[in-house]
């Protein structure tokens, strides 16, 4: 493992949910401890199972792991940290100011930025010289702050006249308001991050083109602010030995090879490690040690697990219910990489196949999916917006109009505000909103939507209208705000897209809570790329299918009012035929098991 070669004091593992950051961070920690180093492992994974992995309760304080000499661990709960942060600001006025006002303030502090800043606040102390951590040779984090957060903390404008003077100014940052520590501490922490002698950033990805594209973006963003010492780990690769005679396994392996061959150039020059998919659960230090071992002989000794018999509703069955309304807006929501664009296309094709007029509009960065559908079905119209272009246009508009009168520090701050994830969300949603109006007559299917938090902030006027209408009673006043359209299940159906894995499901649960806060009840969940639904023959894939069942069951029984499971296909689901197959797996002749 190149990543273990002369590691500096701080190691950060970053990547999207479900790629295995936490497992790899654990394995790295176990390995370094075995080499005789004192190691502290810090997990901010909301699904943190570090305690479970080592068979001990950990929590929010440094805890020695009895089973692994020289290893200690600490769990930071980002949601809990954000709640504590909100309480510091809102707590003193709860019950003093009107309830609606308090709620408004809380919403302002409920975004993803606040959660991230709060988590960063928690681990700042670990990055600076302190007796607390003096004994550790290595501190390993299973997460890393985003470029946006680091840049904010680096901007003098974000701090000026704020923490120092103790007095706010409209030109200082909301999310920084509840920070407790001194500015010098944040500066020291950011400096430690940007110092290649002290910090190594490890990008964790899967051998999938979408994931690799996203990782390349993270790489460039973080390199630009000084985190130049970066490594790449391709996790969960299907080993050649696992293919056996299984067509699906062979197809997956081939797809992975293609994705790796087409890896963005900026990643190819990094030191890269490949970690094979393992047939065992990553619990206990023995399993973790084996994770980073290349050729694991145990792989071949695994007995063939029984075939998984999953009976779950298909996407086509969900579309039956959607089609019944004759028109409306369908929005696919979920974290990046779960296949929202593909699922949106599958829903649109299913609807058009039934002779219903559909407009599919996507933010598909690769464009190939959208292009292949253009003109393929008479009732299907396809359009695409480029999120990057839309965001850039929005930024320039704002800088030209609103930034014109600001001084240099003010402009820098405005520019950074405009690089926040919320800005992209808003810019894309604005671009989509032109199409949304068509949903009164036909179906409009979108592969993205703003989060509940953003909607609530955008709906400030809508809330006011509702208040007015309440006071006026039911008579008079006919109006709808965009928010009211999204809240009405007759007009809008939100489908949550996820994968049958722990972290993606947990992220989807958080998304659902966020939407509910905005009064939007997700209509259904769609579990994408399910190996269990593909009925694999190879042992390693059957093992994975087995692991999926627990997650699928949790979605079906706890999280979703309706759901569908979409199989992992042998070929990329591009074109009408394959998209129909995605939604109707049962129509295809099943391979004998």
């Amino acid at each position: 493992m190149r990543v273990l070669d002369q590691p500096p004091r701080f190691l950060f593992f970053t990547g999207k949910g479900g790629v295995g950051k936490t497992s790899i961070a654990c394995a790295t920690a176990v390995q370094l401890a075995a080499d005789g180093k004192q190691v502290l492992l810090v997990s901010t994974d909301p699904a943190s199972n570090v305690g479970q992995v080592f068979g001990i309760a950990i929590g929010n304080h440094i805890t020695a792991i009895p089973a692994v000499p020289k290893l200690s661990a600490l769990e930071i709960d980002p949601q809990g940290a954000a709640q504590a942060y909100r309480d510091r600001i809102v707590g003193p006025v709860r019950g003093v100011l009107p309830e609606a006002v308090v709620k408004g303030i809380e919403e302002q502090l409920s975004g993803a930025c606040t959660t991230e800043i709060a988590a960063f606040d928690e681990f700042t102390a670990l990055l600076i010289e302190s007796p607390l951590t003096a004994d550790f040779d290595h501190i390993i984090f299973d997460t890393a702050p985003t470029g946006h957060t680091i840049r904010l903390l680096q901007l003098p404008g974000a701090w000026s006249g704020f923490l120092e003077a103790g007095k706010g100014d409209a030109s200082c940052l909301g999310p920084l308001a509840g920070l407790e520590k001194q500015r010098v501490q944040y500066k020291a922490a950011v400096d430690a991050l940007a110092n290649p002698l002290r910090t190594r950033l490890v990008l964790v990805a899967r051998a999938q083109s979408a994931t690799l594209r996203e990782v390349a973006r993270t790489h460039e963003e973080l390199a630009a602010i000084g985190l130049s010492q970066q490594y790449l780990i391709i996790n969960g690769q299907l080993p050649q030995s696992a293919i056996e005679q299984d067509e699906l396994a062979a197809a997956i392996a081939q797809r992975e090879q293609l994705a790796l061959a087409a890896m963005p150039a900026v990643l190819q020059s990094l030191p890269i490690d490949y970690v094979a998919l393992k047939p065992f659960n990553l619990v206990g230090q023995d399993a973790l040690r084996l994770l980073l071992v290349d050729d694991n002989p145990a792989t071949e000794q695994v007995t063939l697990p029984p075939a998984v018999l999953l009976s779950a509703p298909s996407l086509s069955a969900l579309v039956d219910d959607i089609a019944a309304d004759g028109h409306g807006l369908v929005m696919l929501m979920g974290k990046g990489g779960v296949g929202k664009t593909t699922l949106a296309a599958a829903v649109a094709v299913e609807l058009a196949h039934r002779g219903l007029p559909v407009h599919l509009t996507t933010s598909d960065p690769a464009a190939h999916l959208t292009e292949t559908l253009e003109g393929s079905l008479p009732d299907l119209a396809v359009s695409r917006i480029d999120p990057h272009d839309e965001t850039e246009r929005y930024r320039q508009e704002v800088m030209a109009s609103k930034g014109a009168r600001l001084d240099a520090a003010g402009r820098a701050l405005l520019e950074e505000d405009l690089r926040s994830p919320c800005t992209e969300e808003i810019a894309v949603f604005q671009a989509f909103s032109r199409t949304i109006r068509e949903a009164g007559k036909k179906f409009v299917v979108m592969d993205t939507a703003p989060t509940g938090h953003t909607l609530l902030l955008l709906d400030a006027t809508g809330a006011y209208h509702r208040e007015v209408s309440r006071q006026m009673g039911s008579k008079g006043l006919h109006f709808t705000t965009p928010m009211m359209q999204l809240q009405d299940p007759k007009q809008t159906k939100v489908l949550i897209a996820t994968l049958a894995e722990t972290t993606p499901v947990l992220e989807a649960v958080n998304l659902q809570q966020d939407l509910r806060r905005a009064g939007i009840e997700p209509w259904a969940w769609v579990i994408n790329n399910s190996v269990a639904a593909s009925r694999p023959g190879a042992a390693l894939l059957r093992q994975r299918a087995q692991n999926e069942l627990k997650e699928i069951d949790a979605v079906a029984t706890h999280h979703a009012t309706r759901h569908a499971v979409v199989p992992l296909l042998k070929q990329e689901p591009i074109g009408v035929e394959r998209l129909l197959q995605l939604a109707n797996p049962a129509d295809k002749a099943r391979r004998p098991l």
Partner: protein
Amino acid sequence: MKTIQIFDPALCCSTGVCGVDIDQALVNFSADVDWARQNGAQIERFNLAQQPLAFADNAVVKGFLERSGQEGLPLVLVDGEVAMAGRYPTRKELAHWAGIIEIATSQSTGSCCSGSSCC
């Protein structure tokens, strides 16, 4: 010297970029505040999302919030008394309260607009 206090509504980011449309009045007002401060005015600003305690501790502001809600903000106090609500003051109004003599302004009406479209 009179003290001017401005109680802003809850703003997520510095400029309200998170809103659908950025409030140009807010951006202009920030520039006007800078100008007035440079000319010796004493101006304090409080953001509801960041310093809610400043709102709760001031009986006038607290009462205003109870009556009008946060939709009624911004609220401007001059020496502790309500001078304006529901919109941001203009540079001229700030100058008037702070006693700054603006060059090349006739300032014919002693108290500037409280109504719709003036200044």
